[in-house]
């Protein structure tokens, strides 16, 4: 189930992307965080126990929303806008 709930601005253009290889859809002007968390519950696994994380500060400070893109770059989901065809891979994190 989704974490975030859209309250307004739902008439924007639809933007297709892939999430962990599966086709998904966001809206123009979504950050990656919004696009992912309006259909899923987490963004990454924590580095020390793989527990799910979904960001915290949304302003580029906490560094807890990093996701990987198709070209290998790691970006902060809260401050990266969704673009058509973006391939987003969520990292599982590491277990002890």
């Amino acid at each position, binding site marked *: 189930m989704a*974490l*975030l*709930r*859209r*309250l*307004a*601005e*739902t008439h*924007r*253009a639809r933007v297709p992307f892939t999430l962990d290889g599966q086709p998904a859809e966001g809206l*123009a*002007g*979504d*950050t990656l965080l*919004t696009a992912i968390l*309006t259909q899923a*519950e*987490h963004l990454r696994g*924590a*580095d*020390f*126990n793989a*527990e*799910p*994380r*979904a*960001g*915290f*500060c*949304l*302003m*580029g*400070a*906490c*560094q*807890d929303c990093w996701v990987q893109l198709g070209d290998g*770059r*790691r*970006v902060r989901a*809260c*401050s*990266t*806008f969704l673009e058509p065809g973006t391939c987003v891979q969520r990292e599982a994190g590491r277990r002890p």
Partner: protein
Amino acid sequence: MSEVVIVGAGPAGIRAAKTLCAHGLRPTLLDEATRGGGQVYRQQPPGFSRSAAQLYGFEQRKAQALHGALAQLSGQLDYRPETLVWNAEAPWLDTLHQGREAQRLAFSEVVIATGATDRILPVPGWTLPGVYSLGAAQIALKFQACAIGGRLVLAGSGPLLYLLAWQYAKAGARPLLVLDSAPFSAQARATPSLLAQPSTFAKGLYYRAWLGLHGVPVHTGAHLLSAEGEQRVQAVNWEDANGQVHRLECDALAFGHTLRSETQLADLLGCAFHWSAANRAWLPTRDDGGRASVPGVYLAGDGAGILGADAAEVAGELAALTLLGDRGLHVDPARRIELQQRLASLECFRRGLERAFPFPEQWAANAADEVVVCRCEQVSAGEIRTAVRQGHWDINRVKATCRVGMGRCQGRLCGAAAAELIACESGRALDQIGRLRAQAPIKPLPFGVELKP
């Protein structure tokens, strides 16, 4: 070429830029965001259609004026959005544009207006998905038109708590519960100082009254104890003013205890710091014109102590006037005095806010050993206490011992809480445990950046 650089395009940075331009300079304005406004007046992305009234409420005119001021400066300054300053070493700033292009920028003078983030006092379960800072919950709404959940609890303290509850309710996502750790008696006692800013005080009262009228339960003197859930937050436990513990099922929680300043760049530039009891933090020292201890460095806005957006606009203009005067340019002396007087009045109001929303002093003593304090490095309160019991009391030594504050966020999220725990466990005063040092890069850099000449 050497130039005047402003770091941060919030209320302080934009007012500083406008003032410099009005006196014939052409500053460079660096903004980590895609559009100016800072966090408080953050703009929604192009293509969104909500009105300024919907986004900023009572502050819509201030927000529009600030955005308008930046737009009008187009062509008169070098505005660089999506530009992070990750290192500062006079006379250079190291920047990263769009996460790819690195560039070293020389400055003759720099105005640091880097703002603030939420001050967090962790509770068990705060790393669960669905738990956010109050600031984050506001950004989700303002910037992305999203609520962080459907069954929402807001907790902590400070003016943002009530503003956010009101904004969510107005947007159609009425919170289930608002928990304010400040006792009602403190808020009543603070009234005389708060009347230094009658309109701001009135807005605070209005939000409270509105929430009451619309059936949003607000509890004062109430403490968030923990968040619980499996893969996401499913409930909160909280304690009311009478010490009774309650549990409430929810799917989202936002919390925070007012704000903390972003001081890393002033630290890297070698500015002197002083202890601020009101902020419970070390802050870069500035004189009454906004000068830091290092020549050519000026400080404005919440990055040099939390005073809020109105004060940031005043301080931004004042710092710019001081800079111009230091360059030998003529500035209106009456205007400087007027700005200084306005800042003094806002500081009086700020002291009132301290009394109205006092820091929950018992947090460190009550925090369970299991609570994760550092979410980057997964360091618990118990591990911090163990380091202190081994004889460490300096926060940088404790960091070296147990890695608290050593992760990707560099202590932005855990630093305040770690300091409280170290002071409590070591029996030292909060200002006697040292200051967490900033290190470059102050935010993570990707591999393979392109160097721009």
